[in-house]
């Protein structure tokens, strides 16, 4: 890391600002209070103008600050940063080139443009959008703690989410683009599209048509698809954060922790606590994709590369259902 790079956080770079969850046990009382959404593997790096940086620091105090786009690029590649927040207008447009390079080098790193609305910024924003940068936060508009918290969470979950979507790629390819985009958005933000109705609306269609389109593309059930998006996020949070099952369930909109556990088991054949095991976590995308794709569907043949034991578990749960 460059010498000019400084860490703003005292205990964990990966923590995001947000509501605080108290320590889980008395034994942990000595530790500083942790932000509600904290991910051990997630980290945030930013490269912003002083005005934006001040505001950003107030919301994400643990972000690592790079003072130059080249530093940001180096930092993001070498440190495995999950979320990069940058103002494309910095360094006379060189920031755009660094972000494009970063996008190519680390496709799963979530890049967020944080800028103010000026005509001069627009060409840079459009250029980044062409290279697959989808998220923009506007200064003084939607740069709230909740928004950054949601982005951080998404950045942390990106590897798991993209693994699931990659396994469903051939099915998504058979759908019209609006529907495939809506499914991608749902896995990115499971709170935003938390029901079949909302998924249908995001795809610009009705619930009945959604069932028809998904069946045609070899997806067994829209309901399972919606559940899967939330379960993937829950799995990520369980494996990489210190949040309790109760807090995760509440955060993801489950009415009770038991319901989340039940859906975990019915979809994956695993109990939430089993996801602490890295092997099981890495097999999760295969289990979920295998569960989502219809039995008669031949497009999801790549899912058969699943480890034998875990596949058997997933299949046995399916028969029980």
């Amino acid at each position, binding site marked *: 890391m460059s010498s000019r790079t400084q860490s703003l956080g005292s205990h964990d770079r990966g923590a995001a600002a*947000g*509501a605080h969850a108290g320590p889980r046990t008395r034994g942990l009382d000595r530790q500083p209070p942790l932000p509600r959404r904290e991910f051990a593997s997630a980290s945030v790096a930013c490269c912003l103008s002083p005005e934006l940086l001040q505001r950003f620091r107030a919301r994400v105090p643990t972000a690592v600050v790079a003072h130059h786009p080249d530093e940001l690029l180096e930092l993001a590649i070498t440190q495995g940063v999950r979320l990069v927040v940058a103002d494309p207008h910095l360094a006379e447009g060189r920031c755009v080139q660094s972000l494009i390079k970063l996008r190519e080098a680390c496709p799963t790193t979530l890049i967020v443009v944080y800028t103010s*609305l*000026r*005509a001069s*910024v*627009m060409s840079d*924003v*459009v250029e*980044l*959008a*062409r290279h*697959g*940068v*989808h*998220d*923009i936060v*506007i200064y003084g*508009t*939607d740069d*709230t*703690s*909740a*928004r950054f*918290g*949601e982005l951080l969470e998404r950045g942390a979950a990106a590897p798991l989410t993209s693994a699931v979507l990659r396994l469903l790629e051939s099915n998504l390819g058979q759908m*019209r*683009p*609006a529907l495939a*985009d809506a499914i991608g958005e749902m896995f990115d*933000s499971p*709170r*935003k*599209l938390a*029901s079949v*109705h*909302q998924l*249908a*609306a*995001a795809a*610009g*269609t*009705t619930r*009945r*048509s959604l069932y028809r389109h998904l069946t045609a593309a070899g997806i067994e059930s829209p309901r399972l698809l919606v559940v899967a998006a939330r379960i993937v996020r829950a799995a990520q949070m369980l494996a990489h954060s210190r949040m309790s099952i109760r807090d995760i369930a509440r955060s993801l909109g489950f009415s009770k922790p038991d319901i989340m556990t039940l859906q975990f088991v019915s979809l994956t054949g695993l109990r939430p606590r089993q996801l602490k095991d890295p092997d099981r976590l890495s097999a999760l995308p295969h289990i979920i994709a295998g569960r989502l794709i219809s039995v008669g569907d031949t497009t999801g043949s790549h899912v058969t590369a699943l480890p034998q034991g875990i596949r058997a578990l997933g299949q046995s749960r399916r028969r029980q259902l």
Partner: protein
Amino acid sequence: MTEPAHATLTRPSRFAAAELCHQAPIGVVVLTSVAVVDPDLCHSFPKCDNSAHISLLSEHLIFRLRGVGVHVGSRRGFSPAPTTPQALRMHRMSFIRQIAETPENSLQWHALTLTYRALALVDLLSMEAKHVDTSSTAALRDDARSLGDEDAIVSRVAIIAALLHTRRNDCWSEVTIALLELGELFQRSCLSGLALEVSLLALRVSAHDDALAWRAHRVAGWAQRSLGQFDEAAIHYAACIEMGQRLDSVESVFWGRNGFCLLAQDRGNLPRSEALFQRLITWTRKSNRPDLEAHARHGLGITLGLRGRLSDSLQQFEAALRTSTLSIDWGRILGNIGYTYAQLGKLEWARDVFLGLIASASEPYETFIAHINLIEVYAASGQRDEIEPIRRYLEVQPLPAAMSVDFQMTLGRAYAKLGDVVRARRCFERAEALAHRVGIGRGIIEADDALANLPHASRAGGFQNSEPKAFRPLGSREYQNTLPRLSRREQP
């Protein structure tokens, strides 16, 4: 190839090409000059003079455009797809672009930024209300109030902000209604991208309520039709019909069916559009809804006008005018009556209708189109002095891109007709540059054609010598119906 491929095309082929480009889905890299898509087509197009060939090639080309990996490398012609806001997946891209293009700190700029903030907050709050502090909604509400209630958009934003600030769980249907009103305001200003973003958010917020969702589908269908995304628009209209049948709502079913009629019209399938409108009129009469019947008759009149059956068209417009109950519809119908008069050579009647419309129109869209039509009327009657004030007026108006292209083309034709070739050339060049910049395929081809034939331009175009199909309908999709369309079913 040593010269641009489309330069070798025959006139009907060029229009077929324009039609194809128009139909190509956004998101695909569209051809820059027709024949470059495929070496086979490159050879085939110049040869095809008869319509059957064109029709066959149309299918072929559309099929290829929808396939994977179509790439075109020519410099001229259509913008690559990713430059369109809808093709770029960045959230609220249309708003960002519009805000950036608007003079900073103007009322319009404030209205747009406030709307952007409102949408961002609706998005956040609909997801996790408890984690958004009330200061954001309070700030939005205060900012909107500080601008007063003169601007319709700002006042809707103030309503949304006040509703969000209450944090009531039951406020979402009211928020949706305000969002739909915002969408309709953008629709009236021809800001299709913004209307689409707002309507899709309204649709998501009201996903569980069919009674509101169909309205969001209607606005979204209009916006996607305006943007040339016909397949997506058809899905929205189908949703309107499905929800209407579930709710037993005549209006919802009507707007869905009406959307399909307009889609057929936009795709250039005029016989189908006519048949669908006829069926719709019969259905509205059975449902005893004269207001909806008037709307359907107006649509049928436009289709008939596009087919060159001007007398039949006029009859439909007059029937629609008698039964219509909305002042907005009156303006549109009157505009089309004026245009039909002009097509029939009754220039004085047409002028009177347009002037009356300008004095009384409730929508900027109607006013702009009436002004553009007046340019043609004055050019046809040789009144150059009357054209200049209209030109000065329209040049400073915020016309949508497609309308700006048409304005420049109309002005160019008017100058050419009046013998001012230098100014005509300048107008055509401006039209071509603008069409090229925003990716309006028809505009590029038409401007190219006009520039190529400029020495003879005084003999073509305008009302007196115009072909009957050159009909500019009012109230139909933004301005892209102005060119003659090749209808496959019409061909032998």
